[in-house]
Every structure is written in C-alpha cells, then in structure tokens.
C-alpha cells in the first residue's frame, strides 16, 4: 500500500547546503538558496544581453521585455528621485530585477524562493539603508542630522522628537525586509497547504479508502483545492511583481529623502 501523504507546507523553506564550505568555523556552504540566486542572476543577465544584442529598430519579444524593464525603472527614478536619481540607476535596476526574478523563479515547482527568508531580505534592506545613509551624509555632511529634527519645532521638544525620528528612520530596513519576506512566505505556504489538501483528499477518500469505486470521489474532492491553487498561483504572480515594485519604489523614496532632506 502507498504511504499516507503528510501535510508539511514549511518543508519548502528548508535550506539545504549543496557544497560544504567552511571558512574558519563559519559555515559558508553553497546552499539551494545561493543556487537560486545564481540562477536568477544568470537568467537576468541572459535576458538583458540576448535581448538587446540584436538592437533591432522594431524590437522582438525579448528586446521589448528588456526595454520595458529599463524604461520602467528609469521612469520610476525620474518621478520619485528627480534628475539626480539617474546616478543610482544601475543599483536600483539590479535590485529590482534580482528581487523580481527571485520572486518569480520561486513560483516554479521544486524551485526555491530565496526572498522568503528574512535574512536575505534584511540583507538587501540593509544594503539600501547603508547606501541611503551614506548618500545623505556625503551630500549634506553633518547637516544630514537635521533630518532627525524638523526645522520650526521648538527646541524643548527635542528629547521627544529626536528619538521618535531616529526610530522611524531605523525602522525602514525592518519594515522593508518584513514586507517582502512575509508576503513571499505567506503566499508560498498557502500554495503548499492547498496542494497538500489535494493529495490528502485524493488519498483518504480515494486510493487509501476501503471499497471500490471511491477513487472517483477522491479524485473529484482532490480537484477542488487544485482549482483554487490555479487561481492562487495567478495571484502569487501578481504579488511577486508587486512586492518587487514596492521594495524598489520605497528605495527610491528613501533616496529622494536622503538627497533632498524633507
């Protein structure tokens, strides 16, 4: 008899080290998460280089895709950061494409979604945070710290306003990373839960149940969560694109704040 299927929706987030690397006691193994990062970078590079290699006047599908991605980010920077934002285009574009492809490739069955781990998203948010702080400091010097105390507020309020502003500033990387990680993790867990329902219903009402003719019942019952899963997959594609967009546009807004101060 076949083994009874188990419902284990969190199994997909397990990190498996593929190549063991030990750097002086630090576990720096090449994991499945790292593998999918490499894959997504490779896919992005391939898409962009092959896409624009023809340089056709009338773009083909791949070229149109690359150009759309380029224009999308270029417009986002122009609208949210202003003319000084073009310097940051390479960074913002890489960030957007990396997160977008991490999210989208993670939707392929048996793949791994590296953006569903808070360590990955927090590292990304920290890069953004450090960059934004450096840009602010480089542009305004010590004047940057007036960001934490709005002009016009009474000095007596400083002990209240400054900690609040500092906490508000420090909470940016936290909210950035939690938003992306929570959305991806919740979505993927939901997909696996419904997929698990399918196998459980098929087994318990169909293959594993006593008597003949129950297979059809199990099959039909198992079909219902699968139909829902199809709809959820579509929704997850939307979430994947939306969250990459939100992460990038918030980075743009933070850059704008650092460049213009208020």
């Amino acid at each position, binding site marked *: 008899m076949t083994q009874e299927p188990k419902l284990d929706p969190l199994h997909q987030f397990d990190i498996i080290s593929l190549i063991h690397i030990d750097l002086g006691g630090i576990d720096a193994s090449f994991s499945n998460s790292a593998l999918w990062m490499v894959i997504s970078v490779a896919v992005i590079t391939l898409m962009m280089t092959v896409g624009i290699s023809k340089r056709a006047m009338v773009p083909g599908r791949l070229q149109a895709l690359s150009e759309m991605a380029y224009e999308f980010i270029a417009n986002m920077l122009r609208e949210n950061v202003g003319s000084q934002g073009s310097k940051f285009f390479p960074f913002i574009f890489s960030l957007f494409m990396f997160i977008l492809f991490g999210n989208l490739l993670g939707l392929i069955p048996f793949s791994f979604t590296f953006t569903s781990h808070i360590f990955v998203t927090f590292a990304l948010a920290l890069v953004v945070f450090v960059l934004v702080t450096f840009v602010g400091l480089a542009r305004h010097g010590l004047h940057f710290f007036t960001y934490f105390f709005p002009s016009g507020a009474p000095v007596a309020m400083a002990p209240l306003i400054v*900690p609040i502003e500092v*906490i*508000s500033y*420090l*909470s940016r990387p*936290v*909210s950035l990373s*939690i*938003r992306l990680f929570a959305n991806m993790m919740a979505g993927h867990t939901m997909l696996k839960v419904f997929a698990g329902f399918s196998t459980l219903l098929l087994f318990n009402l169909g293959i594993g149940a006593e008597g003949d003719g129950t297979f059809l019942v199990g099959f039909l019952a198992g079909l219902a969560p699968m139909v829902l899963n199809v709809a959820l997959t579509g929704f997850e594609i939307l979430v994947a694109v939306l969250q990459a967009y*939100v992460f990038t546009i918030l980075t743009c807004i933070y850059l704008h704040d650092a460049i213009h101060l208020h």
Partner: protein
Amino acid sequence: MTENDDLPSLEALGEKVQQVRQKTDKPKPDPKAPRAMMGQAMRIAIDQVSAILVGFGIGYVLDEVLGTRPILMIVFILFGFAAGIQNVYRNAMRMGQSADKVPKETAAQKGGEPNKE
C-alpha cells in the same frame, strides 16, 4: 467619387476612435484599485509594527548595557509606537499627494505643456 466619399469618413473615423478610446480608458483603474488598497493597508500595518520592534530593540539593548531593565525598554516601546504612528501618517500623506498628482500630470499632458519642477 470614391475619394470624395473617403474624405469626410476620415473625420468620422477619428471621432469613432476617440469614443472607443474614452470607453476603454475609463474602466482601466477599477480592477487594480482594491488590490492596490490592500497593499497600502499591509504597508501601513507593517510600518507601525516595525517601528515598535525597533523601539523595543533599542530599549532592550540600552537596558542590557546600563542595567536599568525594564525602564528604558518601556520608554522606547512608547517611542516606537509614536514613530510608527508618524510612519503611518507620512505614508498616508504621500498617498494623498500621489493621488492628487496623477490627474494634474495627465491634464498637463493633454494640454501639451511641459511640466517642469
């Protein structure tokens, strides 16, 4: 004969195209709106919570260093709460701004005036 018949029909065609465009342009924002609102609501919730978390973290570390547990933790959680409210307020203001901006920009584009800041 055929040319004379074609000339007025071109204008009629232009009108028709515009009518169709107006029809197809209008219902576009509708399907996206509720999901965008959901996203904004999620963003606000996470902004609020993350500020409290950061406040708690700062207070906890300061308490460990200064040995004044639980006083600073409580104070900084309250600061975090205030910072969260401020995050939410700023986000809401930004949303209102961007909502106002959109019709202005489209109006400028229709008028053919370059909109420079």
